[in-house]
């Protein structure tokens, strides 16, 4: 090492070109860092940053005419039509309701799954795989499978209802039950991810705390309330944020289960944006809807982040 340093120190000064070449061959740490971060920055620019800018820009134009003419600038017209568009409010309401119901539902079921899976089993893999499979399955497939479950004539859910003496229902054919069925599918699909996160959280709680509580004569329920829940809170908040962000984007499951029907009862904002832009080609109005949704979801994220910082 010393000889290496000594040799560079003793070297005679070289011409500028040689030094430049040398720098190119062995760039400084700063240049290296920039080079290494460049691909990620480039992709984020192309797929996230530029689209956001383009989205906001588009939302001020009437882009229904796809001919050679320049699209007319319409200022806030698109926003005005959105605020008076019953389809928009319907989709917003459905999205909010889906989010609230499925986030709470998935959190409760996920917690239950995590508590059950945390018991000391001799073989751990069947339980772990049972938590991983719903997570790994495409949402679209979960939607298809639950559509088959809730099939009016040949679905297994109606078979169960009849076996316990209840009347079968036209699950996906009437608004209220279709909404409930979609919620159940989403909760099933998303609770396993929450279960995995909470299971990891449970495993980090030191056993000694429970042992101490037992010595003090605390009941199981007291242990759960005084030790498990508070120490699990950070994991729960993380799971809640992730789940809420994805719930706001709900698309795949209602799309494959009900196509948003019946009578738009299960249509979400994401589905409205998709049909407005991709199916009907109304890019300007679709962009406006997307901007509104973007604002809603960023507000939710910010709310959560503030909550975390306070804790």
């Amino acid at each position: 090492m010393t000889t290496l340093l000594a040799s560079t120190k003793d070297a005679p000064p070289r011409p500028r070109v040689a030094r430049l070449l040398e720098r190119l061959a062995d760039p400084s740490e700063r240049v290296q860092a920039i080079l290494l971060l460049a691909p990620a920055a480039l992709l984020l620019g192309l797929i996230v940053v530029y689209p956001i800018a383009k989205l906001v820009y588009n939302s001020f134009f009437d882009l229904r005419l796809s001919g050679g003419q320049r699209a007319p600038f319409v200022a806030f017209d698109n926003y005005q039509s959105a605020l008076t568009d019953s389809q928009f409010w319907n989709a917003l309401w459905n999205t909010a309701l889906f989010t609230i119901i499925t986030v709470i539902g998935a959190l409760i079921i996920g917690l239950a799954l995590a508590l059950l899976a945390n018991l000391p089993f001799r073989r751990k893999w069947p339980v772990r795989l049972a938590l991983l499979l719903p997570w790994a399955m495409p949402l679209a497939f979960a939607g298809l499978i639950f559509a088959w479950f809730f099939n009016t004539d040949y679905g297994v859910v109606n078979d169960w209802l009849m076996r316990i003496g209840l009347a079968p229902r036209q699950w996906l054919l009437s608004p209220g039950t279709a909404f409930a069925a979609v919620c159940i599918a989403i909760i099933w699909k998303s609770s396993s991810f929450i279960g995995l996160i909470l299971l990891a959280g449970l495993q980090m709680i030191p056993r000694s705390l429970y042992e101490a509580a037992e010595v003090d004569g605390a009941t199981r329920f007291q242990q759960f309330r005084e030790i498990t829940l508070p120490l699990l809170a950070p994991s729960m908040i993380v799971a809640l944020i992730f789940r809420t962000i994805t719930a706001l984007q709900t698309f795949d499951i209602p799309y494959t289960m009900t196509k948003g029907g019946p009578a738009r009862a299960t249509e979400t904002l994401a589905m409205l944006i998709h049909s407005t832009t991709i199916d009907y080609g109304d890019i300007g109005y679709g962009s406006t809807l997307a901007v509104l949704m973007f604002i809603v979801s960023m507000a939710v994220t910010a709310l959560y982040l503030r909550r975390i910082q306070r804790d």
Partner: protein
Amino acid sequence: MAAVKGDALFTPERLRLIAAAIVVLNGFFPAAWILLTSFKPEVELVQKPITYLPHDFTLQNYVQVFRQQPLALYIANSAIVAAASTVLTLTVSACAAYAIARLRLRYRDLILSAIIASSTFPLVTLLVPIFETMRALGILNTYPALVLPYVVLSLPVCTLVLVSFFQSIPRDLENAAMIDGATRFGALWRVVIPLAAPGVFTAGILAFVNSWDEFLLALSLNSAVRMRTLPVGVALYQGEFTFPWHIISAALIVAIVPIAVLIALFQERVVGGLTAGGMKG
């Protein structure tokens, strides 16, 4: 003996078994039900009362699904897109993660937060401009149209996983390699990446599953039949009169098996990666 027998209904052993059964049933029932459905002939699916185990066991649905629908093509499309985006995601996120974990960087925390924050952007709101960008680039209905956004989709979690793995590798090893004459990139490729192999692997599985499962972009950007990925292809199967559940169920099983095998083989890695990504985010 008698006293023991009285308590025996709810021994801890049995309670554990019940708990395991609940979790396993919850996780496996939907897939198991579709598996049973896929072995039933079409007529058995439309009779009442419904059957649970197949009366007339058949593999005909699996033959039909490959004959009537271009399922093999969908599988190939999904595999190509998922493999390409996994390799690209790993390359891009390994570079970024190395810079964040190792190099002197002025806005290290800010850069890391920006990458994480990008994962909270609702992708669906960017659907329109991404669609326009791909149309402008003339790559709608090609593999790159999906590969590029999928890299961005998995970039945050993969970068997080890799940063924590890179930080766990002793600096001395790289320094030794560089003193022996390796450049920094050489040290990254020959020393750091091999040592971080478990992390690279975990990140790779997460990226693969993300791409394999994605639906909305695949549906919107690559709508041509020959370019459909598995979830889109299967979801858009059309029957003549009704939804062909016998075919769909066989297709679902064919599509779920690869991903189920993958996660079954590498369970601990996947769980580790998910929770590492989740905890830090």
